[in-house]
């Protein structure tokens, strides 16, 4: 790739993204459709700015975005959670791949295809697009709903099933042509091949468990952020390389690596470092898919292509819907699952080109299928819109009606935003006192446990108004904010106070400054809590007791101290904005504190509990 040419291509790709994605987003179509349309516009069949072999190159390069995405999904899935998903992965996923492949195969044979190409077509079309589905689910915050996680389970099984598909393809070939790109692995004896493959996966697990965290620790000490980013990319590229060497899907390998690293300290670091790469490369990937749309095929047989796209989507929706019904998945989740997975997947492109190479499918059929798959991907965002605008509202309306009887005690829910280290104490204690608490939590790790204990949990960012609505904020009697992110706390308080001025809000603050900020935003001082106050005081009391101070007197001294501190807060808050006055009052208070210290010292102990003095009432 020439440098000037590279800049030109980069300019075109980025320009298409920057111009069209915001438009699509504005129209509520989602970013994926924006990228796809942008890709189609710059592709060989509309403007012809990019395309041909170079477009395919871009696609291959961009597939790395899918790899990064799966790595990041893995990061959010601890092994235990993954293990709990084994039911949906193998049950739902297995049935989906098997039944869809069989149905497609049957139809293909009915249209006159031989059995071998029909089998190949069935396998190719059974797959869905991990990239589009997950990106869209995340964008629409559906990833953590039941329908979303089931969709993910099916996609995961599809990614796994690509491995046996790749193995089966040569057997379907009309000629005995072999795949070349498996290389050295195929020169090994047959029994050794699975061992090498397994060994590679074990190597990833071991490296992820023991070597990578240490490596990151060393790099982290250098303080060079870009080194960590480089190491994260190196890790994924390495995994992808290893996986292609042993004939596994790079995305699957990256996913395994992600799962292994899910428990590590560097999880968030990895996520934030990789996020921009994932976003850009996925965008590029969708652009490339758009650019690969072969409009000549479509223009040649528009009705046939349209019919096939419609048939493919309808078939996949029906199969998934039937399976979901059979597995007792109900309500809007069943629809989400069925509609989300109705398109063809990116693996289909790879499998189709392989099918041509090995002469399993005729080139014409293959080109037709590429167009059908690409179009079905392009239609996916529209299916999501159908789900969001038509199906989901119906179910929420219905479920609200059904729930009418037990809404009495949920009429005025207490909403707890954040169930981390602080929020979990608040929530657990309130639950233990029989108060129903609705939790908004963005960390999926907590959620299963919360549900088990009867919490009503909504996943996602508590600052999102739709989530607050879902949690029933308009009926809530109290909102408790226990988010760690200070900016989000302020944002949430501002938004909620603007929309629901009567709702009482309580919030924890990291420090005095945040407390003042909250009080300036209109919270009552007794509704804000300095998060360290309780624990620091606790520790100080214990320390004093360890030194032999009497327990009860120390306890009272600590409470008096707390009260004194509250008075300080009251005194400071009105002038907090005025820096000078603030500084002078702090100084004044500090002087007062020093005086208090001196007084305490002079009198050896607290002087407020004079009632304990030995001269009693009976003495005058």
């Amino acid at each position, binding site marked *: 790739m020439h440098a000037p040419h590279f800049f030109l291509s980069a300019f075109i790709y980025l320009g298409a993204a920057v111009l069209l994605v915001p438009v699509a987003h504005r129209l509520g179509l989602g970013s994926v459709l924006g990228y796809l349309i942008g890709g189609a516009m710059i592709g060989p069949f509309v403007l012809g700015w990019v395309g041909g072999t170079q477009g395919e190159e871009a696609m291959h390069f961009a597939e790395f975005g899918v790899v990064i995405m799966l790595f990041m999904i893995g990061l959010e899935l601890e092994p235990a959670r993954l293990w709990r998903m084994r039911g949906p992965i193998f049950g739902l996923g297995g049935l989906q791949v098997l039944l869809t492949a069989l149905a497609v195969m049957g139809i293909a044979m009915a249209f006159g295809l031989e059995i071998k190409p029909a089998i190949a077509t069935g396998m190719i079309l059974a797959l869905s697009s991990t990239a589009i589905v997950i990106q869209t689910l995340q964008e629409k915050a559906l990833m953590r709903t039941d329908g979303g996680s089931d969709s993910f389970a099916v996609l995961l099984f599809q990614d796994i099933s690509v491995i046996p598909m790749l193995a089966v393809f040569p057997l379907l070939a009309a000629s005995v042509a072999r795949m070349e790109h498996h290389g050295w692995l195929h020169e090994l004896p047959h029994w050794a091949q699975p061992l090498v493959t397994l060994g590679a996966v074990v190597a990833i697990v071991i490296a992820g468990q023991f070597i990578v965290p240490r490596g990151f620790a060393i790099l982290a000490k250098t303080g060079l952020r870009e080194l960590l980013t480089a190491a994260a990319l190196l890790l994924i590229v390495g995994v992808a390389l290893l996986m292609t060497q042993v004939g596994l899907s790079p995305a699957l390998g990256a996913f395994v690596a992600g799962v292994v690293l899910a428990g590590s300290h560097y999880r968030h670091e990895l996520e934030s470092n990789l996020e921009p790469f994932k976003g850009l490369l996925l965008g590029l990937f969708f652009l490339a898919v758009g650019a690969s749309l072969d409009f000549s095929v479509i223009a040649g047989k528009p009705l046939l292509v349209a019919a096939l796209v419609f048939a493919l989507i309808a078939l996949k929706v029906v199969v998934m819907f039937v399976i979901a019904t059979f597995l007792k998945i109900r309500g809007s989740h069943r629809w989400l699952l069925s509609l989300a997975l109705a398109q063809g997947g990116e693996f289909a492109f790879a499998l189709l080109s392989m099918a041509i190479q090995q002469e399993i499918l005729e080139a014409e059929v293959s080109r037709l299928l590429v167009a059908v798959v690409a179009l079905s991907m392009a239609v996916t965002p529209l299916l999501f819109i159908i789900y969001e605008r038509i199906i989901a509202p119906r179910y929420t309306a219905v479920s609200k009606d059904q729930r009418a009887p037990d809404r009495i005690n949920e009429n005025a829910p207490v909403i707890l935003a954040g169930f981390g280290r602080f929020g979990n104490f608040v929530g657990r204690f309130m639950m233990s006192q029989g108060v129903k608490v609705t939790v908004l939590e963005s960390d999926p790790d907590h959620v299963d446990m919360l549900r088990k204990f009867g919490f009503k949990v909504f996943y996602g960012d508590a600052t999102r108004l739709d989530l607050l609505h879902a949690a029933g904020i308009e009926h809530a009697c109290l909102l408790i904010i226990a988010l760690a992110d200070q900016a989000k706390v302020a944002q949430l308080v501002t938004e909620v106070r603007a929309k629901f001025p009567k709702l009482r809000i309580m919030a924890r603050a990291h420090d005095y400054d945040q407390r003042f900020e909250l009080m300036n935003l209109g919270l009552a001082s007794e509704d804000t809590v300095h998060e360290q106050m309780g624990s620091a005081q606790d520790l100080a009391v214990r320390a004093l007791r360890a030194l032999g*101070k*009497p*327990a*009860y*007197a*120390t*306890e009272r001294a600590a409470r008096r101290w707390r009260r004194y501190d509250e008075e300080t807060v009251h005194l400071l808050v009105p002038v907090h904005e005025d820096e000078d006055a603030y500084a002078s009052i702090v100084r004044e208070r500090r002087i007062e504190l020093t005086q208090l210290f001196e007084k305490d010292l002079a009198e050896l*102990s607290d002087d407020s*509990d004079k*009632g*304990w*003095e*030995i*001269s*009693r*009432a*009976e*003495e*005058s």
Partner: protein
Amino acid sequence: MASVLVLYAHPAPHKSRINRRLAAAAREVAGVTFRDLYELYPDFMIDVEEEQKLLKEHDVIVLQHPFYWYSAPALVKEYLDLVLTYGWAYGEGGTVLQGKILLQSISAGGSEDVYCSQGRNRFTIRQLLAPFDQTAFLCGMRYLAPHIVYSANQLSDAASIQPFAQRYMRLLKALRDETLPLEQAASAEKINDLIPA
């Protein structure tokens, strides 16, 4: 041999002169279980189950505390309120404490002569302790006259307090060894004079 439980309650032991030393003496006596209530429950969160278990295991219960406003410090009241439950200490099936001995060891600021009908306090300490007496009665316990250290605020140095600490020790030992004349102890104004030398 009787088992003795001393429940000590002083909210400000660092300001105490008498009780602190008496408490130290009580800890020395073999066969005495010593509990410092304000150290155990500075937050007033009395462990009812644990306290009931201890009461059940002992034969003699001694409430040791300063005489605040003609009564005990607040935690002692909280203790009685929470631990002596219906169906356990009294009422239907409440028989656990029956036959046990209850007495108080008190330090009072005033001298003995202000605690009489002609004195400023108009009642004797024994009379003022009537609610405790009646509590014991309701629970089927035998209430003995209190051990009293009078004029507590005039005793400041260790030497002048030492004899009282010794006397308290002898009292606890006598209770433990069951050598106290219980009939007399139950009807006396104070138990001080019945303690063996």
